[in-house]
């Protein structure tokens, strides 16, 4: 677990990727004659992604983690705040320049690869878009990439339908890495895969990170995977990061009641334990009309009167923080 890039003597280096109080609001139409209402998908998120680290982003569906990923990828504009790549504002970069620095790996390798294109053409597409090299070079690079992700060179001529789920995800990884990006956003990279394949892909991601010095943003609702991979973890709820800490602290000592509930929900293969009862209630709140005060209070077992009225301020402990009135 010694990550040379994260050694304590260099905490002041510029993060590879950073959001500074980013806000993203959508307006949702309520009907023909009614006005639209704001939906705050990402609310005042400041997240630093240091070079060479894995930052895990966890939360339930609808909490804004994929919107945040799109903002990081430059696919989604922000309503307020700033995204910085290597300390330089994202506005200074063109779409193509951003794509050279940061690439995504999506959840479902069955729908993220174009079924009518060969694997060679899928993997080399970024090179062709960015007009890098010529066709001989593309061939060589595709071969190198296939080798790097552990696929035989002969699959270059195949179509996605001829590959298994794990192989397709390897193709998606090869496509993401062919531009040699600094940062890779992995949006649920293994949740569509079988257990034995999942472990192969996680091992591959680990190896590639060490080999190429990559930085990952790992979005997942599988906390066991996040705990295995991540150096830092941010927990999102209704667009806000409610707790952020280094992985060790967060998993050893979760502070926010929501983090605790998420951790309790992880089903480890331990037959002596039954199904956990998280006491979270059934209702995920409507993001158009979020609860007053602390957004989590209707589902919180430790809710007190103050939680319903006042939104909690982040309580900081070094680089870690938690937004909860209990602390």
């Amino acid at each position, binding site marked *: 677990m010694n990550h040379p890039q994260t050694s304590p003597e260099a905490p002041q280096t510029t993060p590879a990727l950073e959001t500074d109080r980013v806000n993203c609001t959508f307006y949702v139409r309520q009907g023909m004659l009614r006005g639209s209402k704001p939906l705050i998908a990402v609310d005042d998120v400041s997240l630093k992604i240091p070079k060479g680290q894995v930052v895990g982003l966890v939360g339930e569906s609808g909490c804004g983690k994929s919107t945040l990923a799109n903002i990081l990828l430059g696919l989604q504009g922000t309503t307020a705040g700033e995204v910085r790549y290597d300390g330089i504002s994202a506005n200074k970069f063109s779409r193509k320049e951003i794509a050279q620095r940061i690439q995504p790996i999506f959840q479902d390798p069955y729908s993220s690869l174009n079924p009518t294109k060969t694997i060679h053409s899928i993997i080399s597409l970024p090179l062709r878009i960015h007009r890098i090299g010529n066709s001989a070079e593309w061939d060589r690079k595709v071969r190198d990439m296939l080798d790097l992700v552990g696929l035989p060179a002969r699959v270059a001529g195949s179509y996605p339908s001829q590959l*298994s789920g794990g192989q397709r995800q390897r193709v998606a990884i090869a496509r993401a890495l062919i531009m040699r990006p600094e940062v890779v956003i992995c949006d649920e990279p293994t949740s569509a895969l*079988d257990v*034995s394949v999942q472990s192969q892909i996680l091992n591959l991601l680990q190896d590639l990170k060490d080999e190429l010095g990559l930085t990952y943003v790992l979005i997942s609702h599988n906390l066991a995977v996040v705990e295995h991979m991540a150096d830092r973890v941010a927990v999102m709820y209704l667009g806000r990061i409610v707790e952020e800490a280094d992985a060790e602290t967060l*998993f050893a000592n979760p502070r926010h009641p929501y983090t605790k*509930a998420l*951790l309790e929900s992880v089903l480890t*293969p*331990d*037959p002596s334990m039954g199904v956990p009862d998280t006491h*979270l209630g059934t209702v995920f709140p409507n993001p158009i009309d979020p609860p007053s005060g602390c957004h989590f209070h209707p589902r919180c077992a430790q809710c007190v009167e103050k939680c319903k009225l006042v939104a909690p301020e982040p309580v900081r402990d070094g680089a870690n923080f938690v937004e909860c009135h209990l602390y």
Partner: protein
Amino acid sequence: MSAKDVILDVKNLTIDIPVSAGMLHPVRGTSFNVSRGETLCIVGESGCGKSLTSLGLMGLLPNTAQCNAERMDFLGQDIRDYNERQMSELRGGSMSMIFQEPMTSLNPSYTLGDQLTEVYRRHVNRNRATARDRAVFLLEKVGISAAASRLKQYPHQLSGGLRQRVMIAMALMCGPDLIIADEPTTALDVTIQAQILHLLSDLQREFHMGMILITHDLGIVARVADKVQVMYAGKVVEEGPCAAVFNNPMHPYTQGLLRCIPVPGKTKRGERLGSVPGIVPNLIGDLEGCMFRNRCPLASEACARMPDTPTELPDGHCFTCLQDKSALEQQAVFLEEV
């Protein structure tokens, strides 16, 4: 548990599907039984035949598929030769199924009320009001608030977790004896998953049903199962009481699967996870020997023609592998030395 509590008893179920390349054998002789109040988990990776087994039980296989069994008794009745009408009496009545995708298994153009009451009016009581009361009762049971007003809603108005609750309520409408849940929580968030599993085991206890839970998630299996069957390439390779299988996995495939999952607190962070190299074999044509042999670290010549007789341990834990425990350990030591 006494013999009369057994509600489903299946022996040697095989499913064969003719495909252009020959005969596909997705299920090759599985046997199991389920008693009242008992949960049987069938676990395995995609393509191992676990979903087809459940479809075979429900008589929902396509016409071209041939489903045969030496014995298939449900509530003491032999259902092997049931015709379509008799099967449809069973389905949704005393045997019901919860499907994986609540998004696609609810009809988007009917209200929840229509879909919930349809099955009850078909099987139990044609009276609209009684069916409606039953639907409201069950929606409340599965933890849906304002149940009466929900009946007028359409599936798209509900979240994934709520839809899955509706699916569970629908499966329970006629008070079934057996519930088959095929990956009931795969599409859901972890928090909702825990709630749904909790709900299923509570309801199972309350209504005294048998349950077959099909999943690929070993974490779920360990937490809810009474009995476990690990399937690989259409065959059960290991089965037994949940604790026995998890505490003392004997088959190399089960061991491999358990090594693949990161467990907070047990696997070291950043350490390489175990894996099961290779891919699932092709199940077309004549198949002989252990199908896991080309992925197995302990495979030997003999595996290519091994018989199907499982080794049974005293606690009811069976596995089909030539290696017994001591040989496995010796082999492991040997491999390390090499």
